[in-house]
């Protein structure tokens, strides 16, 4: 047992912290208010190597471990979860999926620019009528011999407009149920793709969320990842890892809100003393700190298991579930501790509270995580 980070892990944490505290902070309120995509930051983070953090250097990635990824996600999310979700989708869903399951040619063509962060990727699983129940895919990828013909609509797609590479989950053999599903690498500029308007969201407003429509889009056969019918398994495997990213994002929202609350509670005075010296506030802070620390341990444990090549699905579901619930709770308390000031944009915590809500919903809702955890616990597979 060893709770120490390596020198490199600490350096990455520091680099992410420096970038977040110096750069992301500058325009985070404005981008949230007007739903502006963080183009400059995505480019800068790509240059620093954050967009393909865990991809092997052989494919132009940074070759870092999942523990470093958790540390980086936490630091960036303390300031701006909208930017960190862009990073999370590109890293742990798109790059990971291609690197782990793609062919050498697919990696050469698609993974390299994604790992360098020159292009962003998107993961297209959810549909208007297939969210938690991802097996009921209505989007079809009809087998036409040497190509697939793609038709259907995907919903709520992060990086939906900005991505150049789509990983699309679609049904090829409806009679086989989820065993008939495939996953295809699709160029964003293929004829027949149209992107819906930017979603006007409650939180994560600076991230780019769209629906994406496919009408007779031709996708070459060599763009399928894995065997025929591997798509659903691909999605589930990839999401197992993706959850670590979102868990770390939720952790960052919670720990960022806690840091702000501690600072504020030591400054703000009521009834002749700092509010931190009122026990009601001090105990609230203690409660928040314990939860943040728990969430951090769950995230790091899941990341460590993944780095050791051990099964981590159960651990990542726990981390995602607990960190998301903690993020919601801690950010809500942070607003409470800030009083009226917490309710206005200038003090950041109201945005964090709105952002935190999404961590309980995407990449598997909290209820879905409870299903994953309880099934494993009860040996119900």
């Amino acid at each position, binding site marked *: 047992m060893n709770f120490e980070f390596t*020198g*490199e892990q*600490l*350096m*990455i944490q*520091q*680099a992410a912290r*420096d*970038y977040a505290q*110096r750069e992301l902070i500058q325009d985070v309120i404005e981008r949230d208010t007007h739903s502006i995509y963080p183009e400059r930051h995505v480019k800068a983070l790509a*240059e*620093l*190597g*954050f967009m393909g*953090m865990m991809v092997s*250097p052989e494919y132009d990635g*940074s*070759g*870092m471990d999942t523990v470093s990824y958790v540390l980086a996600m936490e630091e960036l999310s303390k300031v701006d979860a909208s930017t960190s979700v862009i990073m999370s989708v590109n890293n742990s869903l798109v790059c990971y999926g291609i690197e782990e399951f793609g062919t050498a040619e697919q990696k050469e063509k698609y993974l390299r620019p994604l790992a360098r962060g020159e292009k962003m990727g998107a993961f297209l699983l959810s549909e208007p009528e297939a969210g938690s129940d991802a097996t009921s895919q209505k989007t079809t990828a009809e087998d036409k011999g040497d190509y697939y013909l793609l038709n259907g609509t995907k919903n709520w797609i992060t990086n939906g407009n900005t991505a150049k590479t789509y990983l699309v989950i679609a049904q090829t053999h409806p009679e086989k149920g989820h065993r008939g599903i495939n996953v295809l690498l699709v160029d964003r500029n293929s004829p027949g793709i149209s992107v819906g308007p930017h979603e006007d969201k409650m939180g994560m407003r600076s991230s780019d969320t769209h629906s994406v429509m496919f009408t007779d889009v031709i996708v070459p056969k060599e763009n399928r990842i894995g065997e025929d019918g591997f798509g659903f398994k691909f999605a589930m495997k990839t999401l197992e890892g993706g959850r670590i990213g979102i868990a770390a994002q939720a952790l960052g929202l919670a720990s960022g809100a806690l840091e702000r609350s501690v600072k504020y509670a030591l400054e703000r*005075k009521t009834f002749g003393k700092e509010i931190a010296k009122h026990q009601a506030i001090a105990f609230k802070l203690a409660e928040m700190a314990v939860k943040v620390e728990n969430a951090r341990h769950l995230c790091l444990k899941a990341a460590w298991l993944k780095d050791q090549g051990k099964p981590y699905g159960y651990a990542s579901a726990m981390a995602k579930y607990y960190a998301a619930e903690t993020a919601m709770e801690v950010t809500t308390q942070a607003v409470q501790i800030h009083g009226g000031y917490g309710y206005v944009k200038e003090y950041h915590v109201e945005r964090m509270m709105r952002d935190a809500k999404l961590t309980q919903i995407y990449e598997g809702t909290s209820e879905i995580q409870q299903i994953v955890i309880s099934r494993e616990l009860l040996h119900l597979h």
Partner: protein
Amino acid sequence: MNIIVCISNVPDTTTRIKYKPGNKDVDYTGVQWIINPWDELALTRAIELKEAGTVKKITVITVAKADAEPTIRKALASGADEAIRVDASPVDAWNTALNLAEALKNEQFDLVICGVESSDYNNWSVGGMLAEMLRIPSVSAVTSLQIENSKPIITREVDGGRQQVSIKLPGLLIVQKGIAIVPRIPSMRGIMSARTKPLKVVTGVSGESLIEIVDYEAPPQKSSCKIIDSENLEMLAELLHTEARVI
């Protein structure tokens, strides 16, 4: 051109400083260590010049024990090519300069750059002492460094204005804010390559401190700020008179 950047390992600038009993020593438990901010700016400028092609090699040097190695690795990750650690605990500015001078006697360099002060002891001394010990010219209060035709073009701040100077090489610059704007954040490629960059450890010269610290005293707590509505100028005048007593 080969540049040496002197870096100091200092507590993070947001550290809440505590003293050991007796108030003669700082209690460093739990402190996060960073590159001295002025040195970090100096290093950033050296890296910028290297990227522009006018500097060939950047070596960072520090006088410290092995626990400063994370800070040295960070400098390497940010873009320095090599590092030297002079294995000694610097006891005061004179001793630090002496250690640096001894180590640098064996090095090939054109320019040495020092930050104007370290953010922990704020002595403003090492740069000047080092130049004298090395018997090389030095320029202080440097706010800008360009290199053209292998010659440094140096801008320094003087009272109410700026001065441009040149210097005979090898020389030493004592740099301050303005030398670079935003300190370099190491990229992951940099972090990876720092693993294999050379870090040389040389034995230091021990020495007595010429200075004795008798007592530390924390600054008085800042009094709280009073915000007065911009419409309410009468109240402002009143308080400036009765409370602040400045008018």
